[in-house]
């Protein structure tokens, strides 16, 4: 199955990079004008198109990129000349760190909230938690980010307002710098984990299977931990993997608010400037990550629920 899945990933990667490359053609703006500088003549711009091969047909440009990429050469930024591989290996871990931090926070906070809400469905507590979750889904990340900064960074000085420290340099500093961004990013996740967990648990609690367990005289705690959560674990795993992929896409805004050198910032800047080697490399890295996350999720399903293996 594993080999099969890996083979399937190849057309996905080609299709994704091709789509992005095609879409880049539609983005207004001409990178040759940007490279040529502020008072460049038309001749100079034409000269640059020639030098960088930007005057070649679109399919040939993509083909060249693909050919080099297959050989492990992802090219250099057209603007700054930094090798794309270097950019990605530098900024992607930062984004991953914040995303993982945010997902962990979502689970750690969302899990107890969901259990609490499901314990007394339709009570005031349930209503309050679900109301809070709706708020969590509705609040925009960037707004929350700015509010957090103005209270916890500028007001009380508990956390830094901007910047990032790589986990490899100092793990505690990394956590300290990443906390506000991760909180800004995780509200959505908390809400989703709590809601999904609540509805799954409520459904299971009202099942005949659980009624039988009650009848057998098991304590509610034992039912929750031994039977309830085990039954919802597959659901929960799906939510978490979706959450991860979603957070990966949502970092763009949070990275800008907190001035974090991450993947989102890099992609947006490169798209706006038409720096296609950077865009292509970054998109490929994201696609690979999503494929890997989905693969790992699928493998974990079979561990959590052996019945899935047969399907």
């Amino acid at each position: 199955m594993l080999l099969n899945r890996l083979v399937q990933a190849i057309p996905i990667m080609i299709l994704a990079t091709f789509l992005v490359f095609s879409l880049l053609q539609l983005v207004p703006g001409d990178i040759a004008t940007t490279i040529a500088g502020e008072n460049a003549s038309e001749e100079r711009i034409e000269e640059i198109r020639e030098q960088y091969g930007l005057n070649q047909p679109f399919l040939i440009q993509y083909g060249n990129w693909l050919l080099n990429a297959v050989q492990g050469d992802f090219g250099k930024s057209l603007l700054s000349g930094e090798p794309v591989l270097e950019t990605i290996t530098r900024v992607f871990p930062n984004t991953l760190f914040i995303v993982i931090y945010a997902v962990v926070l979502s689970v750690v906070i969302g899990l107890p909230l969901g259990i609490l809400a499901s314990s007394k469905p339709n009570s005031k507590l349930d209503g309050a938690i679900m109301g809070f979750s709706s708020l969590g889904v509705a609040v925009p990340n960037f707004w929350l980010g700015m509010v957090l900064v103005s209270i916890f960074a500028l007001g009380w000085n508990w956390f830094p307002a901007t910047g990032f420290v790589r986990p490899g340099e100092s793990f505690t500093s990394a956590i300290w710098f990443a906390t506000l961004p991760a909180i800004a990013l995780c509200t959505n996740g908390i809400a989703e984990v709590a809601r999904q967990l609540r509805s799954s648990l409520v459904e299971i609690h009202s099942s005949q299977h659980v009624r039988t367990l009650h009848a057998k005289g098991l304590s509610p705690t034992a039912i929750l931990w031994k039977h309830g959560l085990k039954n919802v674990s597959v659901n929960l795993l799906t939510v978490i993997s979706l959450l991860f992929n979603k957070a990966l896409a949502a970092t763009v805004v949070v990275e800008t608010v907190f001035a974090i050198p991450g993947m989102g910032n890099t992609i947006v800047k490169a798209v706006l400037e038409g720096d296609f080697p950077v865009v292509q490399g970054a998109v490929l890295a994201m696609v690979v990550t999503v494929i890997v996350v989905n693969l790992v999720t699928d493998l974990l399903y079979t561990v959590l629920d052996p019945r899935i293996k047969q399907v």
Partner: protein
Amino acid sequence: MKKKDNPVVAEAEGFTLRRREFLGMLTGVAAVATMAGPSALMAKVMDNGGILRVGAPANPSSMDPATGGSGSDHVFLFPVFATLVEWDYDTLKAEPGLAKSWEYPDSKTLVLNIREGVKFHDGTELDAEAVKFNLDRSRTDPRSNIRSDLASVEKVEVTAPHEVTVHLKSPDTSLPLVLSDRAGMMVSPSSIKKFGEESDRNPVGAGHMKFVEWNDGDRIILERNPDYWNKERPLLDGINFRIITDSSTRLRSVMSGQNDVAYQLEGRQKPLIERGGSVEGVYGATVYCFQIYLNHASGPLSNVKVRQALNYAINREALVRASMHGAGEPAYMNLPSSHWAYDADVAELYSYDPDKARKLLAEAGYPDGIELDMRGYNDQGSVQRQEILQGMLADVGIRGTFKTGTVPDMSAAYFARGEGDFLVSAWTGRPDPSLTYALLYAGDSYFNAGKVEPPEGLMEAIRASRSTADLEERKKAFSTVQRIVMENALVVPLAFREDIMAAVPKVENLQTNLLGKPKFKHVYLES
């Protein structure tokens, strides 16, 4: 924290040692020479210095002065590359740099006397040969973006080990100030030979800071150059630039202490800076001018009275208050009032007078007003400015809707393809005003969208400004230039942008300059 995991810390520590040795040497010199003034400064060097952390607005396009293209690069380039000529911060008058003096034996020859004993960061000599190498590279290399800056140069000759003679095609006294910009930034010839195209990311100059690291869109690390020719400089141990494109985030990084300085902030942020607390504001005038470019090849704008009407129709004071939160200077010509070549008489030509604008339109044959194809950019600030201008123009009968787009796109459409009647944009300024005027108004210039031949006498007056090195005579020549430009209303100047920086109080000697591109040579941190 493991030290070997942190290259910056390791660098800094290795560096402190070297710095101590250097300072030991310095104090020895000071004791022998017993120089009262400088030794006080040296005490500061020993006690303070420090690493300056700067929030910068944009990733550089290249760290090679000849191949880069963005005006925001200079702030990173100035510390690494010493320039042949420098300028006064407030007036942009030329001052000696690597060239300790220069002269024009005749109007078509410039002789530069290069400072002796200056070394590049790689230890090679900065002599006349190196200067010739740089000038020739900048004006001929296919990758050079500044070939047009040195278009007046015919030949560069080494006439003595530290003397360079530049032969010119035509008289050009703007050259010294050209050599204060990209063209005057000296790159080590051996590094160019070593790195080739990779010199874009491996800058080796002779400036007060040495290059350490550049991570795209993230940071640029510089460290003190202990062998800098001016032994009183640098005061700083290093400069760490963090690239933060969002101006609100940039200011926040200073307010919460992750950076010491942020530059190129916006007018609307001034109240935040002035609210007090942890940051101080540093403000200054710049030559960066918001203006309306006019394509007067055909249509109503080919009539000088219509162009004058445009100039009378705009209330520049109100525009500065409304669209720049007061952080700017109303512009009545292409130079701000603090510039050495400013002419107060010309500035009085177009005071706000909507009645006169209506009258001029009627005289031009448009009593019912005109309709124009207006162009502009689509960022928030530009859109706001354009809306205000639209209102002011409609008030006198000049109507139209704006077509907007990104800066490179709209600029290419307007300047290169000649689309639209006018473009609301800006002129970033040049060190020497003659460059500004020639680039904006010469018949074949890129920025003259209609490619209209300039009015009689303009090119002669620009040439006259270049054929004398005497500042008073040059000033007179520029008065003529400015008068011709404004009387013919070739442009609608709007406002000069104010340079706004925010810094924590321990930053000393931070100054703005007229070019709006901060230099950190005199800055130090109070301990």
